[in-house]
């Protein structure tokens, strides 16, 4: 089975010590600010902030390099085609790159320094319905699992001499495989739900963390929120909105 929810690197970093509840809030604010900001200097400042948080997480290269590689692969088409297809393409590409960098660095710092159970606990502590947290967690986990099932089914088809062609037989087979995948995914989800219920799961994520947030956790979050608010205000001013 593919490792779906990776274990986080065992690094004692400032970001790891930051209480999950306040870390989640600060990074949520950073991500939202980066999403709404449009001017390049402000985006550059937010990317720098993202880099600072990322560096504070002290994540090993072996953890972040493949993730950045995958991200770079996904955004590469935009970076190539934006300058070629838009009149202000270079500007758009720069803004896009900075925005993706700011968001990715912040999110990598968050998921690389917070165990999943703690993260879900933090999500719930902000009043997000536990059902939503569960759906997010299990959807993420089972995306990988279904990809594995698909790989197994493809092998099963290949060993029986199936070759994908543009004909009726191929379309029908692909349809059947898709249906089979959905049925297997549903069965698997049912089994996992049963296993969780059998171990007393009642819809709430619990964690072993007994640590209460310290003043520094809140102050760091507040400082980031203020920085983001200033960036957003400057951005709006530059755009003539504020």
């Amino acid at each position, binding site marked *: 089975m593919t*490792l779906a*929810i*990776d274990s986080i690197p065992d690094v004692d970093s400032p970001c790891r010590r930051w209480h999950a509840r306040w870390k989640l809030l600060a990074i949520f604010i950073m991500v939202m600010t980066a999403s709404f900001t449009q001017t390049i200097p402000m985006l550059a400042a937010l990317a720098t902030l993202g880099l600072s948080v990322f560096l504070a997480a002290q994540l090993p290269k072996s953890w972040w390099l493949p993730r950045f590689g995958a991200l770079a692969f996904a955004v590469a088409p935009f970076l190539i085609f934006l300058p070629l297809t838009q009149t202000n393409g270079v500007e758009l590409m720069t803004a896009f790159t900075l925005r993706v960098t700011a968001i990715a660095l912040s999110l990598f710092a968050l998921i690389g320094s917070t165990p999943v*159970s703690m993260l879900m606990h933090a999500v719930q502590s902000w009043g997000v319905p536990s059902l939503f947290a569960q759906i997010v967690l299990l959807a993420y986990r089972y995306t990988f699992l279904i990809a594995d099932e698909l790989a197994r089914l493809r092998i099963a088809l290949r060993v029986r001499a199936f070759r994908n062609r543009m004909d009726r037989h191929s379309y029908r087979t692909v349809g059947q495989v898709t249906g089979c995948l959905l049925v297997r995914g549903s069965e698997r989800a049912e*089994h*996992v739900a049963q296993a*969780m219920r*059998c171990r007393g799961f009642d819809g709430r994520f619990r964690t*072993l963390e007994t640590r209460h947030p310290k003043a520094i956790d809140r102050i760091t979050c507040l400082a980031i929120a203020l920085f983001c608010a200033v960036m957003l205000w400057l951005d709006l001013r530059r755009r003539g909105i504020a």
Partner: protein
Amino acid sequence: MSLVEVRNLGYRYTDGSPALDSVTFTLQPGERVGLVGTNGAGKTTLFLCLAGVLPVSLGTIHVHGLDPARPEDRRRLPGQVGIVFQNSDDQLFSATLFDDVAFGPLNLGLAPDEVRQRVAESLQQTGLTGQDQRPPFHLSGGAKRRAALAGVLAMRPSVLLLDEPSMFLDPQGRRDLIRLLGELPGTLIIGSHDLDLIADSCQRVLLMHEGKLVADGPTNDLLTDAALMERYGLEVPRSRR
């Protein structure tokens, strides 16, 4: 008083076909029972009813005085009935082995120190000490089975249900499992096609066929009855031939 009491238990699938039909038996504390039968005999369905996962519509079940049909009892049932599923991959969902084993005790509302102690004990019991930070998905088939068992043992159930525990295990893994089963405390029900495993681990056998309990008796008597075994699509285990 019996630890497990099942009376006239019936269960139908959603399409109306019967999965269990008038199943009646009792278990005493500390008993080790093999639940045998061909595919579709109803072993897994019986386990899911005992664990409170499937609703009991016909008949009654009492486990340690708890009735799975009552919502308030059903909430307390995971602390009394532990079930290890056929496919360990269904049971392992946390990022590390530690988190996975701690999942049940945390849901029971135990104090953090107690949770840590139980995790350490369960990992030691199942021979997984030192692997607590490994992702459970990266373990071998045998180790995954032991990890799933550790997750259930950490809840210290009074009744342990093992569904096909030797499935996918190599001979070494199977031997380790038999040794481990011998060391487990409490009441045990092992549902399996592996009759040699049942013969080595259980004193009593429940034989199921098409949702009915067709025989209940000492392991040596039942499993060596060639006519009975053949009638219900099974074979006398090699070790008893």
